[in-house]
């Protein structure tokens, strides 16, 4: 009869939490704080916390303080789904996160069913192609970024053939599937297609393979740590061809970990605290002061996500959950209206974003912006 106690205990704890207090608005962040997505997720979370602190210090949203709760998904889609469900059960005003595309794909129907806006950090192309009216990105999608990379490879790097190194998870596979047709369109030959494992430590064989392909350039699409390890292995193997990447490869974490090996890396950057935009740099300083390390683009995405919710709420002048999504869809948020958005952002009907982006290069261990690319539909 021992089971009774256990069940009783389970009942006791699982009963829903008390309703939120009147003068607060509850936001739940469902994010990868452990597992493969921990680096990205932690940045995202810190960005959110920074934004919430800022907003609360200035009187909150429409006079209400934000109560922020973070749920760890362990980078597991099943857990993510459950956590989003939980967030909605607990009456979240909007769902923030997650960052990885697989968990987003697993959980987005739940927010959609509940008609609650979900602001995610994912970049996989497929997410916004499912007609979900409640899903919003906080960064450019791979579909938006990859043509820019292909153009860059062709016009600036002048590469006739490219080796593609990607991480075999939803992020990497999505990017690989997006870049290859773009390369084809640009008339660039795919020299070699190298899949690597998430969490892979040893990249020597992969680097040799890339070297032997004699490609004119290498497109590296890996997560932070793997990017750094690959750059180190490439240097060890004496690869001198340009390393080109998208946002992650030029991120602060990769530069820190790869050391010398990161110098000379170039590519496209969606969001970067080193971009020649004062608001970005300002954000970077605040983040550094609070967390004692340099934020990557995920920190900025998290920060902007909160301000997107704030802007929409103030625009509709009431706390209407469904209204957040309706207001955001098709809107353009100008920095003059909401400085916290950092850069003018247009939200397309399908939840994709359009904003300026940058071309950058790593020089002497620092990311240097070399050009600013306009919005696709200015």
């Amino acid at each position, binding site marked *: 009869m021992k089971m009774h106690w256990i069940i009783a205990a389970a009942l006791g704890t699982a009963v829903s939490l008390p309703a939120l207090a009147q003068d607060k608005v509850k936001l739940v962040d469902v994010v990868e*704080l*452990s597992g493969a997505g*921990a*680096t990205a997720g*932690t940045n995202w979370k810190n960005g959110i916390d920074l934004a919430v602190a800022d907003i609360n210090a200035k009187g909150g949203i429409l006079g209400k303080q934000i109560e922020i709760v973070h749920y760890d998904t362990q980078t597991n889609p099943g857990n993510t789904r459950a956590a989003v469900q939980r967030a909605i059960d607990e009456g979240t005003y909007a769902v923030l996160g997650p960052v990885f595309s697989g968990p987003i794909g697993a959980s987005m129907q739940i927010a959609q069913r509940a008609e609650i806006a979900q602001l995610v950090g994912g970049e996989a192309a497929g997410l916004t192609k499912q007609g979900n009216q409640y899903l919003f990105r906080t960064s450019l999608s791979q579909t938006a970024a990859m043509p820019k990379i292909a153009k860059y490879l062709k016009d600036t790097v002048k590469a006739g053939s490219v080796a593609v190194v990607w991480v*075999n998870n939803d992020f990497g596979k999505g990017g690989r599937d997006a870049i290859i047709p773009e390369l084809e369109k640009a008339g660039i030959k795919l020299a070699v297609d*190298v*899949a*690597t*494992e998430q*969490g*892979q*430590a*040893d990249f*020597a*064989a*992969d680097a*040799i*393979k890339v*070297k*032997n392909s004699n490609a004119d350039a290498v497109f590296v699409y890996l997560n*932070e*740590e793997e990017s*750094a*390890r690959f750059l*180190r*292995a490439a*240097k*060890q*193997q*004496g690869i001198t061809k340009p390393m080109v990447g998208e946002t992650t490869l030029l991120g602060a*974490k990769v530069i*820190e*970990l790869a*050391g*010398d090996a990161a110098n000379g890396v170039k590519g496209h950057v969606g969001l970067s605290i080193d971009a020649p935009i004062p608001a970005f740099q300002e954000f970077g300083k605040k983040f550094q002061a609070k967390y004692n390390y340099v934020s990557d683009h995920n920190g900025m995405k998290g920060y902007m996500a909160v301000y997107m919710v704030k802007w929409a709420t103030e625009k509709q002048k009431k706390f209407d959950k469904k209204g957040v999504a309706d207001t955001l869809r098709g809107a353009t948020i100008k920095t003059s209206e909401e400085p916290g958005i950092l850069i003018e952002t247009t939200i397309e009907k399908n939840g994709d974003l359009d904003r300026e982006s940058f071309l950058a290069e790593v020089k002497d261990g620092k990311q240097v912006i070399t050009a600013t690319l306009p919005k696709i539909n200015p």
Partner: protein
Amino acid sequence: MAEFLAYLIAGIATGAIYALAAIGFTLVWQTSQTINFAQGEFVMLPAVLVLLAIKLFGAPIWLGALIGIAAFILIFGVGFKLTVVDPMIRHGVLPLAIATMALSIIMKEGAKDGFSAEAQKFPSFVPTETISVFGAAISLQHVAIIAVAFGVIGLLQWFVGGTRLGRQMQATAQNPTVARILGIPVERMVLLTFVINAALAVVASVLISPIYLAKFSNGEVIGLFAFIAAIVGGFNQVRGALVGGLIVGIVDSMAAAYISTSYRLAVPLVLLVIVILVKPEGLMGRKEERRV
């Protein structure tokens, strides 16, 4: 040719690391008939402890390394034997094997929560230059790994075969009952085995962390490959672990080169299954037969 050579060297370098970790497997197996599922974490942790010591005490690198390594050997050589193996071996080897699974989680999560969820740079004691041999670029780091690993394994072989203490240890591993009758301090010898295991883990950790970076999750891959290496080479032999480690390292490198990269991981595993089917005691292992 140059291409093949480059893959081979890279394979031998990683294989040497797997061999170091796999020897630990065989040592623990010989003395306690159990599989240490935390072996990968044993290789991950020393680097993290070194960095932690540097961070906590603001110590210079050499001092941090000393503190971190000493702490590791104390906790996971001596402490592991006394607080995990000893009380649990009474209940049989199965609980002990499972306890090492729990231990691996604790080490991994502990490193994550107590140190960092992100990878960290680890100082290299070898210049990161490359040299060219027959047209293949070979990194000095790889050369150093191979040299140190082989040196350590040679030292271990000499210790086991050529010194009194080593022979006593070997005798204890093979038959503790007889060893006890011969007056060998069995308990101390078993403890020594665990300390050597921890020391080997330290060597492996210091060698690879400059390349792999120090991260809590690094043990998963290393543990898996060391495990495969130990089985392929032979679970009850030190030289089995060496051969197994090199084979697995080379096979993995060649698989990445010449077979699909997305099924790269499958190749050593298939090798493992074939060895189990054809020569279950491992390529270098000896058949175990026990009296009833």
